[in-house]
Each structure stands twice: as structure tokens, then as C-alpha cells.
């Protein structure tokens, strides 16, 4: 399956990109597993706070991802 991951604010500063597509051979990949994978690739994410949205809807649960899902990593912004 292929998913799109979108990065915002400080998270995009860390990943140095606004979005990317990730492909996995197996189905049944969870949000938690995705998070571990991303934190492996972008170590600084571990020290950052952000929320997850799947298909434009905030989720706190350990959701199972589906093909073509769009995942957003949303940190709070501080500036004003």
C-alpha cells in the first residue's frame, strides 16, 4: 500500500520536505508503526510534539492505515 505523509510547521523543518509518499509491502500497518518508522528516519521528531490526522481528521487512536491514506503531522505553532 502507498500512503501520503504531510508535514507542517516545525515537523516540516525537521523532515526538510512538505510531503512524501511511502510504500509498504504489507497491509495492516498502524499509525504507531508509522510513527516509529518516521522517528527512525528523522531522529529529531522524537523531541517534537505533534498530533496525527488521517484523511483530514484528527486521530489519537492506533488506527490501521489503508492504501491511499493521507496522514498529516501537525505540531502546534507558537508565533503570533
Amino acid at each position, binding site marked *: 500500500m502507498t500512503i501520503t505523509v504531510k508535514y*507542517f510547521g516545525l515537523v516540516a523543518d525537521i523532515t526538510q520536505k512538505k510531503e512524501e509518499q511511502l510504500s509498504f509491502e504489507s497491509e495492516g500497518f498502524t499509525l504507531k508503526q508509522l510513527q516509529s518508522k518516521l522517528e527512525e528516519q528523522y531522529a529529531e521528531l522524537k*523531541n517534537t510534539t505533534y*498530533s496525527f490526522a488521517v484523511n483530514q481528521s484528527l486521530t489519537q487512536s492506533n488506527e490501521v492505515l489503508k492504501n491511499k491514506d493521507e496522514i498529516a503531522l501537525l505540531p502546534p*505553532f507558537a*508565533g*503570533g
Partner: protein
Amino acid sequence: MTAPSNRYNRQISLPEIGISGQEKLTNAKVLVIGAGGLGCPVLQNLAATGVGSIGIVDGDVVEETNLHRQFLYTLNDCGMNKVMVASEVLSNQNPEVKVICYPTYFTQENAFEIVSDYQIIVDCTDNVMTRYLINDVALVKNIPMIYASIHKFEGQLAVFNYKSGPTYRCFFPESENLKELSNCNESGVLGVLPNTLGVLQANEVLKIILGIGDVLSGKLLLYNGLNTTFQTITFQVNETEKEKGMQNGLTILNHTTTKEINTISTSDFFTALSNKENLIIDIRENYEEPKLAFENIKLVPLSALENYLENTNPNQKIILFCQVGDRSKLVAQYLMRKGFTNLFHLQNGIEALERVTEN
């Protein structure tokens, strides 16, 4: 009541607003926390539209590096308190609105005192911890909080706690990492971004007051200025997080409501003036009018007050007054925490005296 001016004709012609809508705006009380990049456009728009009472909270002074995005200020204002400058500019822009000044930062100690009976809080601050504080106070007071924040070329906008809707904590649960999030000083900002977001915040405020349109509740708007995209993320109440905010808000409330400040009426004030034993202080800034010409009154603006009182006996009877009585009350509470015991403030400030002398 004086006859309404022509100022609002173009908005009154909208069937969604009309005379009754304009009355709602006149009667509305909105508190804007932060008079910086977001706060300036919010304030300018609310004042121009005729929102009747606008409170401004900010302890900061104007700096030259603010001028590229904070259009209430000019080079001449550098070094002056933002709230006092903003108040003067807005009162000139629209003399029909009442501007209430809180030249202080929004803290746990003063939060409930400041929020008092405002109906809406606009969060224009530049740090995450104050946003949690605003959220928790708004929860206890059961009033909405209009949030916006920026990072480089991106902005976020949402209305939290609207009609028991989701809160700031529901989207962004508190965590240790958050305390060091950078603001515009560190990460840089192009002036158009906070101005765009501030105008959107003002739009949400007006819709809530007027009861028109759909309020951005349960949705977080994401704006990207570089590719001009808007998208929204939907979210729901997280009961655990909401409860955490409510508990924290109540704890703060219980810690700060124990000290009541003595008020003094206008007639007692005139009596007090004739007693040379009393220390009577006008805490207004030098440019605020009208002045009261009594030799017994000391003119000590806020910035100089602490130094001025340094060697004063803590049991000395002190009577503070300002323009409308909001600042003097806050300052009296502050001085009480500093150890002064015999404090009074003139209820409704010098404006109450004016009404009495007019009659």
C-alpha cells in the same frame, strides 16, 4: 443614546447584519490577548466594525523590528507600551468604541481578574504555555477562544470551546517538549502572514457576535502562504484533555480569588482628597486626559510606580485611580501581593468622576 453615525452604513445594509446586528456589535465585549502581529489586525478590524468594548492585554513595548508587520505602531512609538499606543490609535480610528487597557502580560495571577465579563477571548499570543492558560480560563468561564498562530509561512486558525465544543487541549495535548517552541523572533516572519490570520480571527469573532455563518469550531484551518492553500482538519472533544483544562482552570481560579480589593466611590474620593495623610496616585500615562488638578494627587505612571513606592510604609493608605478603574484594580491587587495592606482604587476611574462633575 446619541443617534448612530453613518460610519457603519455599508455593513448595516447587509441583511445578515442590519441595525440589530450593529447593536449586537456595540454591546459586545471582546478581550484581545497580545497586541503584536496577530493582535494588530484583530484590533483594527474589531474597532473599525464597531465592537463596543475591546480589552487589550500585553506587557510588551514597541520595537523597531515590530514595524514591518504591526501596523498600529510607528517609529515614534518605539519603547512605549504597546497597549497604551494601540489604545490611542484605535480610539482615534473609531471614537465610538471603548478600549480597555491591560498593560501587563496575561498570567495565572491576573487571568481571571482580566477576563472578568468578556464574552470572547482572541488568542494573539506568541507562546504555547499562555495558550493553555487562555484555554483553561475560557473553559471555566464558558466562553469561546479564537486561536491563531503562525510558523514561517504557515498559519493555524480555530475557534475553541465554542458552545462546549472541542478545546485547544483536545487538538494539542500538553507535553514537555512544547515549552521551547520558537516564536517569530527566532524563526522569522513575513508581515502579510500574521495580518492574514488576524483578519480571519476577527472574522470568526464577528460571526460569533452576530450569530451568522458557520463558526470554525471542531476544525483547525491550515493556511500556507507560499502556495496559497487552505485545508481544514476536523476534530472532536477529547474528554480527558478537556477535563484536564477545566481542573487546571479551577485551580487557578481558587488561588486568585481570595483577595478582594477595596473600592472607593466618587464622593468618598473627593473627601479623601482633602486628607493630606492619604497617598493618592494617578497611575495613568502622561498623555491621558483629563488631568485632575489637586496638589494631593501624585502622577506616577505604571512603569514608575514600583520604584516610587519602594520606601513607602506598607500600611500607608493608598488610593489608586486610572481612566476607567480596570488598571487601578489590577495594580492594587499586584501591590497587595507585594505586601501593601491598605489599598483602595477608584471604581470606574476618572470617567466616573467626570460623570459626577458634569451633573
